[in-house]
């Protein structure tokens, strides 16, 4: 039983990191940046590039790959989303454009590194540390600590720093914050930067734990999105509830039914949630048919 609890905690940490990185971008821009998935993947593959192919040390290659992946998020904002926003595009148009970016970048990864599984683990796989009969590896401990620290740091950042406050202003009303002299494009750029950096960290951590494939980011991102919708869209604190519910349901499902149904369970929860509680945990309204 403790093992299940530990597994839930590990999965929860990954989900919360992915969903907070996605939510930061959604928070200010109000559209589903699905190309975020490829930023996660790039984090992992750039680490592979720097540490395995170029032979740099991990301490150097991890920051380099976070910078690289962040650049990809920021460039997609500057080159595609910003001009589209300037033309008053709806969030739907932006979403489809982000699908396009995802397809392009994911195939570039496939072309450069191939579709097979790559690993950045240089050490032997070991059983892990035993805690009261349950096992947890060092990497998994790092995942839990890093994710939760980064999540709390993001909450504090939004609450106390100037950029964070501006982000909340843009999130609640972009036009009004422009009137008050906040450059919303600049703030959105920041949220892309921070969100992408967090996503890259998530990608690297997951890759250390379970290796990488070119499509790893997409599933992770979808879990993050489901956690965000369950938690109540746009609420950063609601993510805790969303990620926790999702991780718990998945692991209980894996324990009582079969682990291969984890994907399906995530979406069945999302659908059940839409029927039972369309407002999400935090009570914010999903965009519904207003008739």
């Amino acid at each position, binding site marked *: 039983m403790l093992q299940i609890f530990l597994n839930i905690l590990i999965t929860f940490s990954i989900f919360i990191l992915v969903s907070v990185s996605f939510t930061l971008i959604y928070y200010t821009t109000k559209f589903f940046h699905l190309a975020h998935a490829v930023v996660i993947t790039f984090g992992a593959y750039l680490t592979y590039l720097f540490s395995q192919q170029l032979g740099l040390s991990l301490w150097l290659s991890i920051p380099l790959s976070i910078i690289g992946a962040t650049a990809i998020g920021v460039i997609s904002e500057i080159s595609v989303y910003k001009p589209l926003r300037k033309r008053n595009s709806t969030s739907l148009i932006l979403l489809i454009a982000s699908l396009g970016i995802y397809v392009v970048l994911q195939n570039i990864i496939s072309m450069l590194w191939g579709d097979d599984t790559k690993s950045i683990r240089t050490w032997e796989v070991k059983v892990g540390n035993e805690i009261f009969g349950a096992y947890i590896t060092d990497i998994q401990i790092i995942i839990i600590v890093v994710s939760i620290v980064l999540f709390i740091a993001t909450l504090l950042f939004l609450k106390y720093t100037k950029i964070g406050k501006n982000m909340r202003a843009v999130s609640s009303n972009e036009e009004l914050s422009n009137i008050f002299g906040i450059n919303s494009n600049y703030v959105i750029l920041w949220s892309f930067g921070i969100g992408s950096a967090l996503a890259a960290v998530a990608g690297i951590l997951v890759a250390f734990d379970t290796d990488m494939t070119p499509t790893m980011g997409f599933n992770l991102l979808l879990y993050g999105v489901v956690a965000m919708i369950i938690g109540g869209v746009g609420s950063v604190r609601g993510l805790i509830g969303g990620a926790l519910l999702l991780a718990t349901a998945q692991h209980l499902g894996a324990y009582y039914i079969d682990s291969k149904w984890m994907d399906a369970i995530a979406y069945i929860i999302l659908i059940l949630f*839409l029927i039972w509680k369309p407002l999400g945990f935090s009570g914010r309204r999903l965009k519904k048919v207003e008739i």
Partner: protein
Amino acid sequence: MEYLLHILIMIVIYVMLAHSLNLVAGFSNMISLAHAGFYGIGAYTTAILSVNYHFPFLATLPIAMLVSGLLALIVSVIALRTVDDYFIIITLGIQVVIFSLMNNWMDLTNGPLGIPGIPSISILSFEFDDKISFLILSLFLAGILFYILRNITSSPFGRVLKALSEDEIFTQSLGKNVYKAKITSFTIGAMFAAIPGVLYAHYISYIDPTSFTVMESIFILSIVIIGGMRNLWGAIIATAFLIILPEALRFLGMPNNIAANMRQIIYGALLIFVMFRYSKGFIKEKQTVN
């Protein structure tokens, strides 16, 4: 010649997919990423019925359409509680669930191993086992589909769909049942998507879940968007372009796997590019003044 016929058959299959999605995404403004799922349900239904139970094609086709339509009906009742972006995310979820069923329900679908040995189509003891007769059959079905879609979209029901895609509240205020119209459109779209699925399964004679992934859904949606929403002829041109392109790249000496990636990169880039054109919204029909 065989090779050319193969490309033509694939074009016809994808044109049917794009047309069925056009009804949902173009005419009723419900952008769905679950279409490859319904395509897959069509393929799997016919594969399971004809391999395990030796059903003839004339029986599996309507059954496949019914199964796909029934699932779409159940799913759309829930999914259509949301609109726009959230609808896309929900359909993405449906796609993942359908894929997960195909990939994991070993007893029924044989999981990642797929179902081999699907017999070729035979109608009244005529075997469609060579490519020319198969092409004629699929062209025939595609023609019927085209004709039905033309009729649906210019019928009163089609006008309700067009109206609701522009303004749901206004359509509702005219006394039209928007929710019901959307469910109907989504279900019909899914039923039509099962037809190319059935054809594909019999044509390739082997199916596995990798043909019905999220990427496939994105590809079908790209055809519709690149060809032009509500534009049935545009979809044909876009399909031909996107299917012939990787073959052309192969002729230029590009290795197979890179050509496949290049195709996706090109349609992804086209998708971004087209979004700039559509940035004011998808609906751009000519205004007619009475």
